[in-house]
Each structure stands twice: as C-alpha cells, then as structure tokens.
C-alpha cells in the first residue's frame, strides 16, 4: 500500500480514541450553555471524573461502578458551579476557573495521599474494549440533538438560555432547568474523563486531561452550540491530534498541528467563518 493509505489507516485507528473524550465533554458544554450557564470548568470536571473512576476501580476492581462514580463526581462538581452561579449570582467564568484550579489541586493532592506516590496512580482494572464508550458518545450526540430540538424539555431549556424572563413568564422554572442542564453537563464531561483513565490508559496521572476540557469548550463554540456541530468540531480537532501522532517528526512541526484547534476557535469566535453566536443569555446571571 502507498504511504497516504497507511497514514489514513493509522489516523482512522487513532481518531476515535482522540475524539471520544472530547465529544462527551463538548456535549456537556452544549447542554449547559443552551440553558444559559457557561461551563468553563469542563477541564476540571474531566479531571475529577478521570480520578474518581481510577480510585473506585483501584478499591473495588469494578469498572462499571468506577464509571458510575465518575459520573456522580462530575455531577457534584457541576452542582457547585450551578449553586454559585444561580444561588450566589457569582460570575460563571470566575466560578468555572475556581473549580478548575480546585479540582486540579485536589486530584493531585489525593493522588499523593491515596496512592502514596505523587504524580500518578498505579495501573487499575479498566475497560477491555473502550470502543464501547465511543459508540455511547455517538449515540448521545443523537440523543442530545433530539432532546434539544424535538422535545418539550429541550424547547423549554433553549428558551431558558435565550430569554429567561420570557420563559419564566410562560411558567418555566428557569432555575430548575439551569441546575438540571449544568448537572447533566457535568455528568457527560466526567464520562469523558473516565474514558481517558479507566477507558484508555487504566491509570490516572496529574495533568492527563491536558487541555482537552478547553478544546471541548472550543468545539462547543466552533460547532455553534449544537450537538452535531460540536461533535463534528471534536472529530475535526481530533484529526489534527491523530495526524500529529501518526506523522511524528514529519514535515509539519507537531506544535503547529496541536495549535490549530485553538487558532481556528479564535478565528471562529471573531466571526470570520460565519457568526458563532451563543444562546442570547449564555453566561448572564438570572435574577427574578
């Protein structure tokens, strides 16, 4: 076979692994931002989920339980974001950064205390075939799309994200919707984290999320706040990181391929490729 085919084959093998965690996290971002809460804490929630899964698997050797605990952890972290954003009217971006810093510190602290060694956990039982989670992620893209655009709940949620006051007048409980959307988003982001740990590598190491939460955030914007758009952006971004792995030492410096998602997002949000318009009340505190 010729080289381009070999490259394509290698990329096809790596791409799903790179895209899956991004898709989970980006879907989480899509749900919460359609409800009007900007979740900049995706990075921290992924780390929290990845860590919780590994600790659970370490203690119980039960991978399904591990993923379940990861999801609960993500929901708890997202609930903190929702509480401060909704009950305390705090700036969502500030709270999101706080959760990122807090979670990255906390997981590093816990790695040292729980495993007795800084930096990384020992290897724990993990999924034998993590491709299952890739199919789950793809299915969830469709599910989230249907919920957002084809169900009453989705229409209400988007109303809450666009015009909360009008939604409230129509009898929708804005605060409840925002809590639910943010917490559901946290569950998904944590699944992305669990994929990285008990799915792909079977360990937790400090910094293993490595900016994927922010790439997912970029994918939400790049995909114009829609599930299919965001998932497409994740696949697109994953293509670059796969190419970077496949073409190691190639003509293009690895850093440039890695940089592309970030550069493209800047270009997208500045409106150079169509207008990336967030839900009208995204990030705006709601007060009755």
């Amino acid at each position, binding site marked *: 076979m010729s080289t381009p085919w070999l490259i394509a084959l290698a990329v096809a093998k790596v791409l799903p692994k790179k895209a899956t965690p991004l898709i989970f996290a980006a879907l989480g971002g899509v749900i919460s931002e359609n409800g009007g809460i900007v979740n900049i804490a995706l990075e921290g929630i992924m780390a929290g989920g990845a860590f919780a899964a590994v600790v659970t698997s370490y203690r119980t050797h039960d991978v399904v339980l591990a993923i379940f605990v990861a999801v609960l952890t993500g929901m708890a972290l997202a609930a903190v974001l929702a509480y401060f954003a909704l009950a305390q009217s705090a700036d969502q971006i500030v*709270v999101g950064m706080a959760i990122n810093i807090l979670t990255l510190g906390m997981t590093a602290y816990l790695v*040292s205390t729980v495993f007795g060694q800084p930096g990384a956990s020992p290897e724990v039982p993990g999924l034998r075939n993590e491709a299952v989670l890739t199919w789950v992620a793809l299915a969830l893209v469709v599910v989230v799309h249907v919920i957002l655009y084809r169900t009453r709940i989705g229409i209400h949620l988007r109303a809450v994200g666009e015009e909360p006051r009008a939604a409230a007048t129509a009898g929708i409980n804005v605060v409840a919707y925002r809590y639910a959307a943010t917490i559901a988003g946290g569950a998904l982001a944590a699944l992305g984290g669990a994929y990285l740990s008990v799915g792909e590598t079977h360990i937790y190491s400090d910094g293993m999320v490595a900016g994927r939460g922010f790439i997912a955030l970029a994918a939400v914007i790049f995909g114009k706040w829609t599930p299919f758009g965001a998932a497409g952006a994740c696949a697109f971004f994953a293509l670059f990181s796969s190419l970077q792995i496949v073409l190691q030492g190639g003509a293009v410096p690895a850093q440039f391929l890695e940089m592309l998602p970030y550069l493209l997002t800047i270009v997208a949000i500045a409106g150079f490729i169509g207008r990336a318009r967030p839900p009208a009340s995204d990030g705006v505190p709601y007060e009755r």
Partner: protein
Amino acid sequence: MRDALRHAAGPVGALALALIVSSFVMLAFHTNPIAAFGALLHGAFGSKQGSAETLVQTTALLFAGLGVAVAFRAGLFNIGAEGQLVAGGLSTAIAGAALHAPAIIEIPLCLLAGAIGGAIWGGIAGVLRARFGASEVITTIMLNYVAFLGSSYLVSGPLRGDLSAPETAPIAATAVMAPIIANTRLTAALPLAILLALYLWWWLGRTVAGYELRAVGKSERAARYAGVDPRVVIVRAMLMSGALAGLAGATEVLGLLHRFNAELSPGYGFTSIAVALLGATNPIGVIFSALFFGALQNGALAMQSLAGVPKDLISVVEGLVILFVAARKLPVGLMLARRPARIEGDS
C-alpha cells in the same frame, strides 16, 4: 483607616473560610492542619532565605495579578495572563541575548521588550473583543495554548540556543538583574512591581483614562453616553493587562532563569486570577494578596517535606478563595463589579 479595614474584611473572611474548608480536607485524610500550616509558615518566613524566596514568588504574582486586576476593572476577564507571561518572557530572552549594551540601558530595554511582548498577546484579545465582539475569556484561553505551543516550537527549533536542552541562548551579562540581598534571588523587580502598583492605583483613581476604564467596566452603554469609546478603552486595558503579565515573565528571565525555557512559570498567570480577586482588583489590595499567595506557594514545599502534606493542597486553597470571593450573597463575597457579558449593542 476604618475604610481600609472595611475593604479588607471581605477578602480576609473569604480567606479564613478557604483555610477552614481546606483544614477539613486535611482532617479527612488524617493530617493535622495546624502542623501543616505551621510548616508552611516556617517555610515561607522562617529564615532569611525563605522570606526572600517568598518575595521572589510574590514579585511575579504581583505583576501578573495587577494585569488581571486592571482588565477586571474594565469589565474584562483576562484568563490569558499565563500566555502573556510566556510571550513577555520569550521577548525579553530574545532581546537579552541579542543586545549588548551597558546594564543601565540593556535592562530597561529588555523589560520594555517583555512588556511589549505581553501587550501584543493581550492586545490581540483586546482588538478581537473591541472590533468583533469576541469574548476575551475564550480568546485568552485559546491564546494561552498558542503561546505555550508556539514558544515550545521556537525553543526546540529556530531559537534553540543550547543543544542539550530546549531553551534559548543565555542573555547578555549586562542584562542580568542581580540580587539586591546577598545569597538570595530577590531582585529589584519587587520594588519595581510595588511602584507600579502604587502608580496604577493613582492612575485608576485620579486620571481621566483611569476613570474611563472604570466607567466602561461598570457599563459600556453608560460610558458611551458619557462620550467614552469603549472599544478604545477595551484595547487599552488589554494592552496594559498583557504588558503587566509580560513584565512578570521579563523579570523571571532577567533575574532568575537568564534565558527562556519551559520552567518560566509554575502557573503564575493562573494564580494571578486568585491574586487579583482576593485583592478586590484594587492595586493596593493586590500587593497584599500577592504576598499571601507568594507565601503560600513558597511555604508549600516546606509543608510537603516537614509535615508530609502534598504541596498541591495550596491549589485547593486557591480555588476555594476564588469561589468564596465570587459569591455575591455570602457575607465574605466582595460584590465584585459584574462584568458585562459582552458588548452591549454593537458600534
């Protein structure tokens, strides 16, 4: 005096709450928080070297914290201090290696290069926000990664000055900022940062440009009716913010590393968000909160070696401080001016 105490009550309360919560975290893992914080204090202030090192960390946090604070006053959330710090540090390292002038000229020029490098990195976000309404939160996050990856490329390729490690060539001997106290790493960068803080305090409160910046931070629309062009103010604020973060990188290079490499910053740019918020975005307040976080970071190593508490615990304290300061309905919340979500009604 009473006024100053009243201003300090909120941050001190948030701090106390953060320390209490993190103490419970330690108790949950059978460590004694009093021993841990005792070791931290000892490491931070227990010796001449220790105290000087605390002030070294304070310096970088003060520069970058002032940057984040200035942007905040203009209603902008600059998450990109880390990237601006890298851009500044790299610019200074390039200037320092290329120029060979007497120290009295060389050092200011290198500092200027760092400020310009940081200002450009911050200014990009400012222009994108002012011209296209692109959220500076998103662009500064993305620009951070562009700076990390771009500098990593440059020091491993075109700018590599040392074959054994990915770093730039060393700066000229005349560019080195020497310690002002013997046997420590503390340089004149600290007094410079404090002077800048005082100047900024005066600038924000007493000049027309400072007033305009604060006006835009309160309400872009109201500022526009008062004849202020928010776009100019936003770009100016991001240039200043980036320049200040750039100076943090510049002084690290000139005083400590004498070259640019990946060890430039242990995350000063991110900690500076906590510094700015705990300082209530007031330059004078930022001096004190930079000292606090400098002590926390420096003391963390002693806490780890003497009390066996992983140093990462201080990030937990940091995150909690930000969380409690941001809360608007707790008594400790600072009622930070709410940032306008995005440009209100374009042009």
